[in-house]
């Protein structure tokens, strides 16, 4: 008798996320699928609106990563007004970069503190009573307080650069709408000995060390968990450096060989396309030249470290070199290495925020540029979860007529499915009982990618996760429910 194990959040329609695992009569996994509620509907929502509203409108769909969409849309609109994003004024460019580093910093810290740290500090099979944020606080109270302040620092950087913490309006077509004031700078750099950019760098370094200490004691488990080969893609700077704000598209295979490099992202659709599958609303992007089967790729922290040549900030570069030495210079396919990569990026973001805060271009200089109006523009940025694409067409009345978005979670769709399949094959297969620790490993696999549930609603009554066991005829055999608020 085949059994189907479903890890299924129950919501009004499609849920926050759902995992379906099918077993055969011998309890071997024959299929596993991950369904994540995806980013859809916005493309229609924005059509017919004036193009200059896009950068503000896009933020409204997501409360976790609004700034990434804000900046990405602004970059697309730069092209619409005839100014390539790498030709903005120094003030426009650097204010956007500071905003983006603030967003990156707080997003990555949130992920590590909220999701990863309980698993890493206590182990994925530890008692769930302890394996949570409260357990982390009880055992590591100072770490928890630092994480909250790091989040706050990133949020304040966003407020200072975008004008508001939520629904900021800072990035506009062709540049930025404000300078940073010297008073704001001093708040971040020196006014408060318990809350400043130097401390953020120090604490970010502690975060990397925390992971390395854990890794040292748990090498096999960390390196082996959901480790599989794939292609990787991200933006890189002209000199090959990690650049989360602007660059050309680079894709590498599992051996580090370049598939394409320094591609102008205005032409992204010549290199990447999306496949539709009948069991999910989510699409599956792939690299055209490799085809559907072999062309899927991963994006995000691990992909960025797998594709870039170096990191342009000294402390993060040192950590990068150590990481690359450990992986023998080759791309790493270990899903748990995403946490390592994420923490190196936290350090990089902290260093870059400190550097930019000391840059006089933030406090003076022209804010915007204009050019010759065009009818189409693409913006691409490295969001915390990975490469983000915004593509718009605008008519002669300045109204948006087409919008296509590829969000990071969509690009990671196949990767997440593979991670879940790895857990199913290696941990669940052959077992007659499904203890909590096993199912948590599926969550651990998904958590490493931190899928963006940007179109999810947040109403009370949504249960985040539901485990259901079905027989081959679809009869419910057993279920476990994790209740939400």
């Amino acid at each position, binding site marked *: 008798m085949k059994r189907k194990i479903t890890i299924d959040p129950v919501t009004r329609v499609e849920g926050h996320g759902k995992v379906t695992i099918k077993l055969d009569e011998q309890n071997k996994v024959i299929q596993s699928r991950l369904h994540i509620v995806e980013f859809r509907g916005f493309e229609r929502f924005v059509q017919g609106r004036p193009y200059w509203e896009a950068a503000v409108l896009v933020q409204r769909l997501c409360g976790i990563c609004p700034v990434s969409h804000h900046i990405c849309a602004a970059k697309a609109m730069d092209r619409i007004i005839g100014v390539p994003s790498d030709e903005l004024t120094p003030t426009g460019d650097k204010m956007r970069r500071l905003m983006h580093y603030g967003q990156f910093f707080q997003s990555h810290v949130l992920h590590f503190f909220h999701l990863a740290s309980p698993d890493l500090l206590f182990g994925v099979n530890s008692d769930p009573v302890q394996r949570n944020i409260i357990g982390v606080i*009880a055992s590591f109270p100072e770490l928890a307080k630092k994480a909250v302040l790091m989040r706050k620092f990133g949020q304040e950087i966003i407020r200072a650069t975008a004008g508001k913490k939520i629904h900021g309006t800072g990035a506009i077509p062709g540049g930025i709408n404000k300078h940073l004031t010297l008073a704001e700078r001093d708040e971040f750099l020196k006014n408060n000995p318990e809350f400043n950019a130097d401390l953020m760098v120090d604490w970010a370094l502690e975060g990397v060390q925390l992971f390395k200490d854990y890794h040292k004691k748990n090498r096999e488990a960390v390196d082996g968990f959901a480790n599989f080969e794939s292609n990787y893609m991200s933006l890189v700077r002209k000199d090959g450096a990690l650049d989360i704000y602007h660059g050309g598209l680079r894709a590498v295979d599992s051996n580090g060989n370049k598939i394409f490099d320094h591609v102008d992202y205005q032409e992204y659709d010549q290199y990447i396309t999306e496949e539709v599958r009948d069991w999910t609303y989510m699409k599956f992007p792939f690299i055209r030249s490799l085809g559907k089967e072999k062309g899927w790729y991963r994006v995000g922290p691990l992909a960025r470290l797998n594709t870039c040549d170096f990191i342009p900030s000294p402390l993060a570069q040192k950590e990068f070199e150590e990481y690359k030495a450990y992986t023998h210079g080759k791309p790493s396919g270990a899903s748990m290495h995403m946490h390592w990569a994420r923490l190196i990026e936290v350090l990089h973001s902290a260093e870059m925020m400190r550097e930019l805060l000391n840059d006089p271009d933030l406090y003076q200089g022209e804010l915007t540029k204009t050019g010759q109006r065009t009818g189409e523009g693409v913006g691409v940025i490295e969001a915390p979860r990975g490469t983000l694409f915004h593509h718009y067409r605008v008519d002669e009345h300045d109204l948006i007529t087409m919008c296509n978005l590829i969000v990071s979670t969509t690009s990671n769709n196949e990767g997440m499915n593979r991670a879940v399949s790895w857990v199913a094959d290696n941990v669940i297969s052959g077992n007659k009982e499904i203890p909590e620790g096993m199912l948590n490993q599926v969550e651990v696999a998904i958590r490493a990618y931190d899928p963006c549930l940007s179109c999810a609603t947040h109403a009370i009554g949504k249960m985040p996760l539901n485990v259901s066991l079905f027989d081959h005829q679809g009869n419910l055999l057993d279920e476990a429910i994790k209740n*939400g608020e």
Partner: protein
Amino acid sequence: MVFLELEKLDWKPGDKILWFGIGNPCRQDDGLGPRLIGALENRFKKFDFESNYQLNAEDALLISGYDGVVFVDATVEPEAQAPFGIREVQPSNEIAFSTHEMSLGVVVALCAQLYQKTPKTYLLTLPGYSWEIGEELSPGASQNLQQTIDAIADRYSSFI
């Protein structure tokens, strides 16, 4: 009946109170929380107000500065009280699989553990019925919202 619900908010004179709306205003009735906050913050000078799409860890720091907190959110629960219901929030240690979800109970627990503060924390829910992309509330949600605004304005007129 609505007044009885509001009596559940157990505050003393002089208490510092925060109202916090949760939800996405671009997902129709999911925006009920922020909409209520938007309607109240122009009327009440003696309360503080905040809104966000979802809760985050640093909200534990925010609520630690208050004696009482009312979180406001839409609900899909089939038996939900209309136009609104109120219940006290208990600490919790639930962990989600995504950073897009942090429960009220965890925020309350974080506040107690990190800052040794235990503000009286409540959840006020308004039933929602439609959740598609869009800014307009459904007729039922709109009615619930208006009745809630009127009830609060009536009950807390001294806080204006």
